[in-house]
């Protein structure tokens, strides 16, 4: 394992933890991580019941990345996600019911079943799409940032992707493009050690797939513990501040691990024995519970949050089960901006 728990293993006093985050935000980040965990676990359970159709790519184990980056955003900041985007979508405040509804391909889904698990989008929450072609959204995030720069608006475009994305051309085109024009965009690589089924190290010329490429674009080499929401939050906050100040893009490599396979079809048997268990010791929620305890927050407070989240997800699940299927009349809507699909007169 190429990372250590860091501050989380240190039973030091609160003072050593640099409490620039505060209790209210920490409780919000705890609640969010629990929500992401429970929602993804629920999606998996519903898949086993054949109620989630198509594919799904879960972020189990990667909750701290989505939580920390979203928590540091302003409402007008924009998220660009991959097909592993449920967590990033929920972290912007999209209701669980809307996401589960889309995964279950019901009419109450975020896009009424027209997009599916890999394309979650909620413009009202700043989620400008989830992109299922590897690397496609990095240039798109650059364009949103170009607009902000051109119009003098201070929002930041935040683009999430996996370690595998660092080996596709669009990654390199986007990094160069963003650096040349000093665009207010933050590129976030969630290095979960596997590109689909293959260890990223076997197919990448450098050890750190994102960070070791940063120098090629004149960017700082940034590697963080992606399982510690506090570390993620602080890194995000600093990167957003640089972007807003006109100091250009950042590329951040977050070390993390997915507890499940690449997609629902993958039992992840390629992982060496004991690896998952080792990473589960560094489960982001486990780390954060210990963190909250260090700040004097009791088990009862956390148990209450856990129960509230579970009840909310239970209610969302029931609502989705009751929701109708999408109607046929949306098949041909919104192909063009006039709302329809007419290609001829």
């Amino acid at each position, binding site marked *: 394992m190429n990372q250590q728990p860091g501050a989380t293993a240190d039973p030091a006093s609160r003072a050593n933890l640099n409490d620039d985050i505060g209790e209210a935000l920490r409780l919000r980040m705890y609640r969010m991580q629990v929500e992401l965990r429970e929602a993804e676990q629920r999606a998996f359970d519903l898949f086993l019941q054949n109620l989630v159709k198509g594919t799904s790519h879960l972020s189990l184990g990667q909750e701290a990345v989505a939580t920390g980056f979203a928590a540091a955003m302003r409402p007008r900041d924009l998220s660009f996600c991959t097909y592993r985007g449920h967590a990033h979508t929920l972290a912007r405040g999209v209701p669980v019911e809307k996401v589960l509804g889309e995964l279950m391909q019901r009419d109450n889904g975020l896009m009424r079943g027209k997009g599916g698990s890999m394309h979650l989008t909620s413009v009202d929450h700043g989620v400008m*799409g989830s992109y299922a072609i590897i690397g496609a959204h990095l240039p798109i995030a650059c364009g949103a940032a170009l607009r902000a720069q051109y119009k003098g608006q201070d929002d930041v475009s935040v683009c999430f992707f996996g370690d595998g994305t660092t080996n596709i051309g669009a990654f390199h085109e*986007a990094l160069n493009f963003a650096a040349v024009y000093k665009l207010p965009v933050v590129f976030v690589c969630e290095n979960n050690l596997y590109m689909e089924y293959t260890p990223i190290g076997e197919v990448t010329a450098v050890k750190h797939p994102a960070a070791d490429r940063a120098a090629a674009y004149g960017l700082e080499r940034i590697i963080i513990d992606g399982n510690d929401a506090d570390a993620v939050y602080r890194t995000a906050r600093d990167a957003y501040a640089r972007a807003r100040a006109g100091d250009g893009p950042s590329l951040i490599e977050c070390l993390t691990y997915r507890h499940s396979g690449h997609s629902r079809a993958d039992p992840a048997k390629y992982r060496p024995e004991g690896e998952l268990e080792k990473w589960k010791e560094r489960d982001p929620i486990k780390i954060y519970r210990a963190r909250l305890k260090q700040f004097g927050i009791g088990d009862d407070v956390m148990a209450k949050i856990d129960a509230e989240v579970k009840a909310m997800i239970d209610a969302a699940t029931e609502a989705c089960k009751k929701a109708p299927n999408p109607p046929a009349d949306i098949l041909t809507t919104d*192909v063009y901006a*006039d709302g329809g699909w007419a290609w001829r007169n």
Partner: protein
Amino acid sequence: MAELTYRDAVARGIAQEMARDPDVIFIGEDVGKAGGVFKATVGLYEKFGPKRVRDTPISEQAILGAAMGAAMTGLKPIAEIMFSDFFAVCFDYIANEFPKSRYMSNGQLKCPLVVRTGNGAGSRFGAQHSQSIENWAMMIPGLKVVAPSTPRDVIGLMAAAVRDPDPVIFFEHKSLYPVKGEVPDGEIVDTLGTARIVRPGKDATIMALALMVPRALAAADKLKTEHGIDCEVIDVRSLVPLDTQTILGSVGRTHRLFTVEENPRLCGWGAEIVSIVADEAFYDLDGPPVRITTPHVPLPAADILEDMILPTVDRIADTVRRSLSA
């Protein structure tokens, strides 16, 4: 009224829209300070400055991706892909991203942008810098596709494309850049989805696009002069939306249909038009519809070979004459 080249019409069309709307920006390789490799965008950088006219790296994916991101958040970008053949290196945006974002998001995302590109043969550049790829774009639900044949249409359709709320692929024909035409003074705004009857006639309908329009017109003149055959020539102009009413109306009068296509034969745009006419106007036809196309081969570089492979005035005229006398 002034005489303008097709090349200068491109710059005038873009300038007209940039002057009108500060949200219009223009990005591409060598488009700014150099004025474009075909000199079709000379003067825009000087007039609108580096923030609005941006020279980019050779990064076609970044160009189109950035145009999309800017479009979905409030700008109206015009992006240049220097040669249409290069669509192949950024086809994800053209096929998967621009045209599907609105649908997949159930109408939440918008993508009002224009991709303009140098299309077509005649420059002796060989198989990777000469193709007519309008059929690559036409086949994708969610895109709009236009290909002007005159300087006036360049300006008018550019304005229509920039003002349109959907992604529009704008094919400029490289061999038309030096061609001159009359252009009215003042603002010109055309309408997407409208074909134009550029020569009325009663004996046959010839549909053509871009560089094939002047060839179809020359063939029609030849057929009239040499054989007394009176052809109607229609400039298709817009492949999507497609003005089928003008096409069906013409076939209803002439009872014969010919398409003149620069794209290679398989799945060329004319195949769709023939299919529509067969479905909806079969009993108007006095003979089989005939497609005159480039054969299904890559394009050669040598001038003598390239000139042989595209539909020529003589081939169009001979094909129409033989078909009508058969």
